[in-house]
């Protein structure tokens, strides 16, 4: 019998995981102390949400043939009890080589460097797709809306999957043990952090 996920199943979202990768203290403030980020007050976050709303309604039948896409599912909600992750994937692409790939839209600018957070998020989506669709996922795509929807391809390695699973374990570790984790070693990240006033 299939065991369905319910709201009380302990799971985290890929967004929570990438916030943890950015700085582990996000997990502590959000999940242990329940202090909200109020990210909705940030203009760029609101723009990103509008982008996602638009994407759900506009051009639904458009297939990215350049990527070898033959079909797609839009806004797919997937869960996995094994890795403890639940999340909404912007698009699941069916590729011509009989594999699947996640496509994630970002309201950000394209750079040659792939940010760790983007890579982890995409890898978690890949894990969710593999488990739920029972099909291989070798690569994923990120669409950068601020650079004329330029697409970046991410080819996953075994290391990426291990790292992403490890990050999820770390998040659960902080939540369950409730300890105050070390802050990120990159001080640049603290400059515009919403918790900078209370973080010591």
């Amino acid at each position, binding site marked *: 019998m299939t065991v369905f996920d319910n709201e009380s199943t302990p799971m985290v979202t890929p967004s929570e995981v990438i916030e943890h990768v950015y700085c582990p203290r996000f997990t502590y403030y959000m999940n242990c102390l329940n202090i909200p980020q109020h990210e909705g007050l*940030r203009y760029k976050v609101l*723009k990103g949400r509008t982008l996602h709303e638009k994407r759900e309604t506009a051009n639904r039948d458009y297939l990215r043939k350049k990527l070898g896409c033959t079909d797609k599912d839009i806004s797919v909600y997937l869960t996995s009890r094994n890795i403890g992750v639940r999340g909404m994937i912007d698009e699941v692409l069916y590729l011509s080589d009989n594999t699947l790939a996640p496509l994630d839209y970002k309201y950000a600018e394209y750079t040659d460097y792939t940010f760790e957070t983007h890579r982890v998020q995409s890898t978690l989506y890949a894990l969710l797709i593999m488990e739920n669709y029972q099909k291989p996922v070798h690569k994923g795509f990120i669409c950068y809306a601020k650079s004329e929807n330029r697409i970046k391809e991410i080819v996953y390695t075994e290391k990426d999957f291990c790292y992403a699973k490890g990050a999820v374990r770390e998040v659960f570790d902080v939540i369950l043990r409730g300890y105050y984790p070390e802050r990120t070693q990159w*001080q640049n990240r603290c400059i515009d952090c919403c918790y900078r006033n209370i973080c010591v």
Partner: protein
Amino acid sequence: MKAGDKLVWVIYDITENTKRTKVAKACKNKGLYRVQKSAFLGTLNKNQLDEFKVMCEDIISPDKDSVYIFPMCEDDFKKVKLLGQAFDRKLVTDEVKALFI
């Protein structure tokens, strides 16, 4: 100035009153100081600067209006010369005035 902050000039030429007011309000909300009627000055970090750019893009009509955002280093700012009635001293706070001295 805090670490990661940049000194920025914002100068605009906007035809419509409502849009001009919105850009001026956005400047004030970002903590910039009014130096002249259509010129603001202040410090912003990288993310605030990017956010401000996105906001202005959404407000203005790109075919009619213009908004210039000039980042400036502190060394160059100290070399700025002010002639005549360069800025309204009532509108500029002590923090920015101190940079001119």
